[in-house]
């Protein structure tokens, strides 16, 4: 496992980055980016997630198996969202017979 012991400085820097991202995402929300607003918000959230995972959860030092497990979970979430969306996004595409 991790014999690596991170320095306080490392953790403090990560915390500062996380706090900065929080401020950033709040401010960016008030800027008109059209459809890109959602992308920006999610991109910042994913960045924060990676910071927490890699540094606070020590995924930086984790085994391949742990990373596979994490990727599997995220992939399955993606399957859930994307395949449900194949229904809702195509609802209006074709009418019913006779219409």
């Amino acid at each position, binding site marked *: 496992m991790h014999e690596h012991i991170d320095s306080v400085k490392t*953790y403090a820097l990560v915390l500062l980055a996380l706090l900065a991202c929080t401020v950033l995402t709040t401010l960016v929300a008030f800027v008109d980016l059209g459809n890109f607003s959602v992308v920006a*918000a999610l991109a910042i959230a994913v960045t924060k997630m990676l910071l927490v995972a890699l540094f*606070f959860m020590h995924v930086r030092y984790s085994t391949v198996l742990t990373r596979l497990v994490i990727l599997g979970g995220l992939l399955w979430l993606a399957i859930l969202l994307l395949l449900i969306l194949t229904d809702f996004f195509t609802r209006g595409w074709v009418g019913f017979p006779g219409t």
Partner: protein
Amino acid sequence: MASEAHAAHEETLALREQFDTAEQQKDASTLAMWIFLITEIMFFGGMFAAYTIYRSTYPTVFAVASASLNVVVGAINTCVLLLSSFTMVMAVRASQLGQRNAIIIFLILTLLFGGVFLGVKAYEWNEKYVEHHMPGQAAFHLEGTPLQGPAKIFFSLYFAMTGLHALHMVVGVGILSVLIWQTRKGKFSPEYFTPVDIAGLYWHFVDIVWIFLFPLLYLIDRHLPK
């Protein structure tokens, strides 16, 4: 043919009888926590799926409803939770170094920050109640949109998702309390601090859920004029 190294042995906290080495036990416990966390990804995931569908179906209503949430309070609460993750990983670090008092201090700080978060959440929920934005209320009304039904759906998701998150926080607070008590009793050492380690993983995960909840609930199209 049998293996000497894997003979039956006396049971200790760091080496339970079903395991052969302490490292095997630690690996197994860590793997188990990660697998549990991906069950949590799928658990919250169902609600995120519902959110995705309804936000894309009712984008304007969701924006109006989101604007009724206090973004400053939400942002500050997010920072409080991030701070708690910092103190949590510091507690794990202290465990790695065998610094018993530091472990206790950082765990207490984590617990306090978690408590603050929950307190602020309770305040926010109360605000929604007072403003008649709770879906169960007979007097429910969201100003700024004729679509009261979808507005109720937003707030149903708001309460369900933040409620489920808060429930996980409460469990986390309980776990932290137990850990503080165990640390005081001298249960942990640099050779064995797995419960602190995996409780940390849980706590950080709950933080990550909030990292997504905050923008998805509080920051929907805030640039739109009120």
